[in-house]
């Protein structure tokens, strides 16, 4: 559905993204993962036709973004980061306006409006000015704006940033509910978000693609070392020494009574750790496995690559 071919984008002399290529199949939800400034927004803007790539090309449903920009734009619903909107307009007027500008015919506009309002749960705010809405509702209006012309492709730039946990949950549910119907590309810097909503992941760093994989594989290959967090009462030196005695344990760090223990891949040593601590007479207050944050994955990924280069 979407094919990104060797896209490079420069801002003056600064390289925003370099030689990026990947594809998104129809009905797929692709997570576009990377730290701030990695080039996520730039790539999405190239896909949406906001600006042309310096080099390379993007095809959406077979149309080239360089040669048929209007046709590409017709296929896409786009939600920018921190969605900008006309704050002086009422929700209903805003959606009507966007629908009409996007070319929804007069006869189907009413039906599209009703469907969008229902899907994005905007019924309670249709008569309110967009500028007066809460952050969560604004995000939903922005989604509504993207969906109003029933586009087969959705491009969402950090759709959950700045929302509270309940709103984040709702937006994710909404995105997931569209799986299969629409091809979706969503960018984020939150790793769990990808595993929760996406079927495929592209990781980007400093303008270059670091990895393209399915969500499952990503989890397997990146989480080399499981981390366990412990809260133990007792002298830290002794506790650390004790923990290190267990077979298969890597680094042990602590901040006060909180310990981070690294285990080798494919080995679940949680029960052994618990036993070791308790049997040696320390008080075990808490034990939980820690999922890796994106920062961890990145540090891991980048350092591993550098080591690989050296070897």
């Amino acid at each position, binding site marked *: 559905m979407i094919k990104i071919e060797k896209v490079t984008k420069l801002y003056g002399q600064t390289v925003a993204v370099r030689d990026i290529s990947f594809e998104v199949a129809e009905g797929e939800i692709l997570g576009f993962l990377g730290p701030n400034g990695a080039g996520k927004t730039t790539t999405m803007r190239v896909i949406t036709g906001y600006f042309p790539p310096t080099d390379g090309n993007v095809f959406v449903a077979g149309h080239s973004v360089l040669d048929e920009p209007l046709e590409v*734009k017709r296929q896409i619903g786009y939600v920018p980061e921190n969605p900008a909107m006309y704050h002086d307009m009422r929700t209903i007027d805003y959606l009507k306006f966007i629908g009409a500008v996007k070319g929804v015919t007069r006869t189907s506009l009413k039906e599209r409006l009703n469907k969008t309002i229902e899907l994005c749960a905007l019924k309670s705010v249709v008569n309110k000015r967009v500028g007066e809405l809460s952050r969560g509702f604004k995000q939903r209006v922005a989604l509504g704006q993207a969906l109003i012309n029933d586009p087969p492709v959705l491009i969402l730039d950090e759709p959950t940033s700045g929302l509270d946990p309940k709103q984040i949950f709702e937006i994710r549910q909404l995105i997931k509910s569209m799986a299969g119907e629409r091809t979706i590309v969503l960018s984020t810097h939150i790793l769990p978000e990808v595993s929760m909503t996406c079927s495929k992941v592209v990781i980007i760093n400093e303008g270059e693609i670091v990895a393209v994989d399915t969500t499952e594989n990503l989890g397997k290959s990146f989480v080399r070392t499981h981390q366990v967090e412990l809260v133990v009462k007792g002298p830290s030196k002794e506790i650390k020494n004790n923990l290190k005695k267990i077979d298969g344990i890597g680094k042990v760090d602590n901040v006060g009574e909180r310990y981070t223990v690294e285990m080798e891949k494919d080995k679940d040593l949680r029960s052994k750790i618990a036993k070791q601590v308790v049997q040696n007479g320390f008080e075990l207050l808490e034990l939980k496995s820690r999922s890796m944050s994106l920062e961890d994955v990145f540090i891991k990924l980048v350092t591993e690559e550098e080591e690989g280069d050296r070897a």
Partner: protein
Amino acid sequence: MRNIAEIYKREIRFYFATPIAYVVIIIFTIIFGFFFYRSLVYYSELSYQLMQNAYYAQRIDLIMGVFSPVFSNNAIIFLMVIPPISMRLIAEEKKSGTIELLFTFPIKDIHIVLGKWLAASTIIVLMLVLTLPAPFMAFKFAGAAEWGPVLAGYLGMLLMGLSFLSLGILISALSENQIVSIIVSYGVLLAFWFLGWIIDPGSGKTIGKVLGELSIIGHLSNFVKGMIDTKDIIYFVLFIFMSLFLTLRVLESKRWRG
């Protein structure tokens, strides 16, 4: 066409949902009304005195006596009230980020610019329409007056207003800040105004003539006297066309640069 109409409707709604349109129109009509009133009173006093003399009585002219000075003054009012209409048109979309939406919608830049231009033009037309009671009133007193020269004056006013507006949109496209946009508009419009005064066009120097022809005010003087010269019409139409063309180029280059 529908795209242009939708952009147009939104801009019109914005102008009238905010105080902008009302403030501009009210200020404009009050100042216009004041100039018209002063001219008319002065003219009627003058003509009363001139009536004593048969030779001068024949030369009393409502156009030269009232409308020509009023229309000339009006150019200054337009210069003041049109930049407030044009300053936000694109600068605001850039500042709020809504330009990103418009650029990703299946519409062409020219539709966006034309929709906005037409909406602001409507405000200018409305301002001029609201001054129409003035000539009607004047003609009540002067039965022999002709409409032709007055309408020529109005055409000149309209073309000049649209030129100011088009330049204003171009400057709005160049800036993200509305205050910068309005101040630069004032500066550039005044510069176009004074262009003819730098070197006396009558001095025989070519550069003086060229600058004189480029100056906005020089092309208004025929209209306010009731004359329609193709040269003046072409000047204003080209002025509008060039400004809008450059606006589109500015938007396009903004895209390429990101």
